[in-house]
Each structure stands twice: as structure tokens, then as C-alpha cells.
């Protein structure tokens, strides 16, 4: 029996067009388009690509609800054994879309998903927890290799074979910690680990602590009086009513609000942060995000200006992956807006 595979690509790999077509709404093609064709050939007799969904990257990210609904309907109709998305290489929006597809297909439809990405793709953090993500090159020049690896793993997944370790098979660890039997009891492994440390040999901790990389400090502002400064907070300060419904904990998104012409946040903003007693911040939100003081310094001429948007999210319980994504997205906007420096406040 041959398995059924449904393929997802963006407007570019779906051969519709470039950036100008990034806003296209999703369509379902019954034929194999772009990488779907190559993937289909690699699968040989074992599986067949029964259709290709093509969706604009901007559309997916900006009209998420509609896109998700389309995916659910399309996948339910074709009822495939596996969904393949990408590979997205280092394309950020495409990667986020592939991650979005993985999330909805895995969570809502319980169908396995495989995709491919470069290690720095912002979609990786979500995609790896919802699907199998093959490690790829950073550009489409690596298409051939990526598809070959994806096809190999896809065959194993379809047949329900046990996958090898991520580092051996070339996929990103999903972060799933499985309890298994070892051929040695724990104490013996501990003694061996200690001996390895004494001898300076390599050893593998069975419970690695989270690692934090560092970024070199950016150069200081030469002349503050001309600088445009942005205010960012993880303290959950939002406009009254929380119009964007930012979560009080384990935030899935951030918000930005226009503060042009406002002297402070008092009265119009409050906190939705679930990690502390909100009384004091609600009394005066500037205790968390000190817009009033920045305005004061602006008037005094100490700083040039305060950037017209204020950025906010909640810091409590928010996954490292999301925090990275938020930082990347916010940083990009600040850079494009010509912001010179930022103040981030955390509670």
C-alpha cells in the first residue's frame, strides 16, 4: 500500500511569484508543485504526494486564522498519512508558516508533519516541538540534500520505525525526554561519568542545563540628546481592555501601542501580567514602563525623542523559544524604524 502525503509550500516555491505575491491566499492544487515533485520521486513506490497547498508567506502570518482554517479543511479532505512543509531554509516568514502548519496539523488533526529548516530560522522553536525538522542549509541551494534527508526520515515515520538519535539522523531534537531502560544502573553511570571527568574524556550529561549564548554589547550612544529611544517591557502593560488579548502568562505574542503625544501611561494602561500583584502597576503603569520619566528627559533635552510605539509582552512562564522570536521581531521593527537605543523593563 502506498501512503498519502500532502505538501505545503509558499508562493515562491509554489511557482506563483516572489515578494509581490506574498499576500496570496492559500490554494489547493491536486498536482505536485516545486519541491513536492522532487519529494514524490524520492519516495518512489512507498508514498505519493496527493496535493500541494500554496500560500503566501505574508498571508499566512497576517491572516493566521483564515490560513489555519484553510489548512484544517484541506488536510481533513485529503486525509494524508503525513504532511510535508518546506523546507524553509533560513527564510523567516516561510519558516514561521511551516511551524504554523506543523502546529495546527499536529495539535488539531494528529497527523505527523515533517519539515526542514536552517538552525537560525525563527520558526524552528515552535516547529521542532510539533514536527520533525530536518537540518538544512541556509539557502535553497541545499534543496537536493534537504529533500533527500526529509524523504529518508519520512519513510521511517510512515512505517512507524524508531528514529535514531537526532545528531545521527540529521534532525533537530524535538525536546522530548523519553524514559527508557539503560544497560547500566544509574549509580554505575554516575561513577563512570566522574571517572571520565577525571581523565578529561568526553562525557554526556543526561540532563543538560539550559545554555545561554551571549551577544557582544552594542556600541554606546554618542549623543543622547539626538537619540531616538524605544521603551519595551515584559511587565504585561497593555491598554485598558487588553485589545490584543496578550496572555497573562506563557505569552504567545507581543503588542505595540502608539504613545505619541502621551505624557504617561497612567489611566489608559494597566497590567495583565500573571506573575505579580497588579495593584501598584495599575495605580501607575509607569512604575513598570517609565514613559513619564522619558518624556521628562525629552523635554529637558537629555534625549532626542521617544519612539512612537511602545512594545509589551509578559515575561512569566514564556518559553525561551517565544522570547527569542519576540526579540527578533521587535528588534527588526526597531532597527527599521531607526531606533538608536532601547530600554527593556522586566518585573
Amino acid at each position, binding site marked *: 500500500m502506498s501512503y498519502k502525503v500532502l505538501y505545503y509550500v509558499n508562493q515562491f516555491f509554489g511557482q506563483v511569484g516572489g515578494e509581490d505575491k506574498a499576500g496570496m491566499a492559500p490554494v489547493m492544487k491536486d498536482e505536485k508543485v516545486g519541491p513536492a515533485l522532487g519529494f514524490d520521486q524520492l519516495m518512489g513506490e512507498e508514498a505519493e504526494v496527493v496535493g500541494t497547498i500554496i500560500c503566501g508567506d505574508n498571508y499566512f502570518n497576517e491572516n493566521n486564522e483564515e490560513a489555519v482554517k484553510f489548512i484544517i479543511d484541506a488536510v481533513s479532505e485529503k486525509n494524508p498519512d503525513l504532511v510535508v512543509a518546506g523546507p524553509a531554509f533560513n527564510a523567516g516568514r516561510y519558516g514561521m508558516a511551516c511551524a504554523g502548519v506543523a502546529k495546527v496539523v499536529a495539535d488539531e488533526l494528529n497527523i505527523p508533519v515533517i519539515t526542514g529548516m536552517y538552525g537560525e530560522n525563527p520558526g524552528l522553536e515552535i516547529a521542532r516541538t510539533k514536527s520533525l525538522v530536518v537540518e538544512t542549509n541556509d539557502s535553497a541551494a541545499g534543496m537536493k540534500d534537504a529533500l533527500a534527508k526529509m524523504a529518508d526520515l519520512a519513510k521511517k515515520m510512515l512505517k512507524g520505525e524508531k528514529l535514531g538519535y537526532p545528531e545521527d539522523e540529521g534532525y533537530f531534537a524535538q525536546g522530548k525526554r523519553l524514559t527508557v531502560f539503560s544497560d547500566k544502573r544509574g549509580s554505575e553511570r554516575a561513577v563512570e561519568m566522574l571517572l571520565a571527568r577525571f581523565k578529561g574524556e568526553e562525557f554526556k550529561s543526561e540532563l543538560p542545563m539550559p545554555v545561554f549564548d551571549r551577544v557582544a554589547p552594542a556600541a554606546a550612544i554618542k549623543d543622547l540628546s539626538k537619540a531616538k529611544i524605544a521603551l519595551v517591557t515584559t511587565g504585561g502593560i497593555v491598554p485598558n481592555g487588553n485589545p490584543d488579548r496578550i496572555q497573562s502568562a506563557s505569552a504567545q505574542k507581543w503588542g505595540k501601542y502608539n504613545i505619541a503625544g502621551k505624557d504617561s501611561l497612567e489611566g489608559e494602561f494597566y497590567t495583565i501580567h500573571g*506573575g*505579580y*500583584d497588579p495593584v501598584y502597576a495599575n495605580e501607575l503603569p509607569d512604575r513598570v514602563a517609565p514613559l513619564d520619566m522619558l518624556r521628562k528627559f525629552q523635554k529637558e533635552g537629555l534625549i532626542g525623542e521617544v519612539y512612537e510605539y511602545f512594545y509589551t509582552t509578559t515575561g*512569566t*512562564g514564556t518559553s525561551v523559544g517565544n522570547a527569542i522570536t519576540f526579540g527578533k521581531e521587535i528588534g527588526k521593527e526597531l532597527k527599521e524604524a531607526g531606533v538608536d537605543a532601547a530600554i527593556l523593563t522586566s518585573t
Partner: protein
Amino acid sequence: MEQDFVIVTNNPQVGKDLGKVELVDGSFEDVLIKVRDLVHQGHQLISHPIGASMRMLFSPYRSVLVGAERTQIKEVYSLTIESGIDTFRRSTANRNVDYVNADDYARIDLELLKEAIKEHGIIQREKIQEVQ
């Protein structure tokens, strides 16, 4: 000696004879949140917010000792209560509170609380001796 602690609890078996009680009308998690708010205001976190086994996380009741006065906001207290709340939520995500054995949990929580008070008392006495 003036008592320097407050018991934050939702355990109905905890009586005033043990000391000042801040009774929380709510769940285990509500007790932790109350403790968090007090720690954020500068109360010392005297006893660890969670127990020493998974089982005790399914308890409907919990008692935690905090300092009676606002003294200083210490990172270690904030981090401990934050991670305690996080551990509680993570460990009980798929579990029901074990109400069937509520009375037994209340009893054991009370006993463990008494031990915590004793342990705290020993440390306080040592401190006073240092001063003398």
C-alpha cells in the same frame, strides 16, 4: 520572644496557637500566589513553598512560613517562589487534586508545618546567640 513569622495557609486544621495565620480562601496554588505577593513586598520566605515529593503536590492544602515584617527583597526568595509555582503547575498539569484524602493531607501538612516552625526556631535562637 516576639514571633517573627506568619503562616500563609489554606489548611483548616492550622490553628492560631501556632502563630499568626494568613488564611487563604482558595487552593494550593492560591497559597503560593499569596506567598509570592508577600515575598515581592519584602517578606522573607522562611520555608520552601513546595514539598519533597510528587504526592504532596496533589494535596489540596499547603502551609508556608514567611517573615512577619517587610525586611528586604531578596532574589533568592523571589526565584524560589517563582520556581515553586512553576513546578506546581507543571507537575499537576494533568492531575486532579486528591480531595478524597483531604483530611489526611491537612493532617500531614500541619505536622510538616510544625517541623518547619521548629526548624526555623532553632535557626533564630542561633542568631540571637550570635548577637549576644
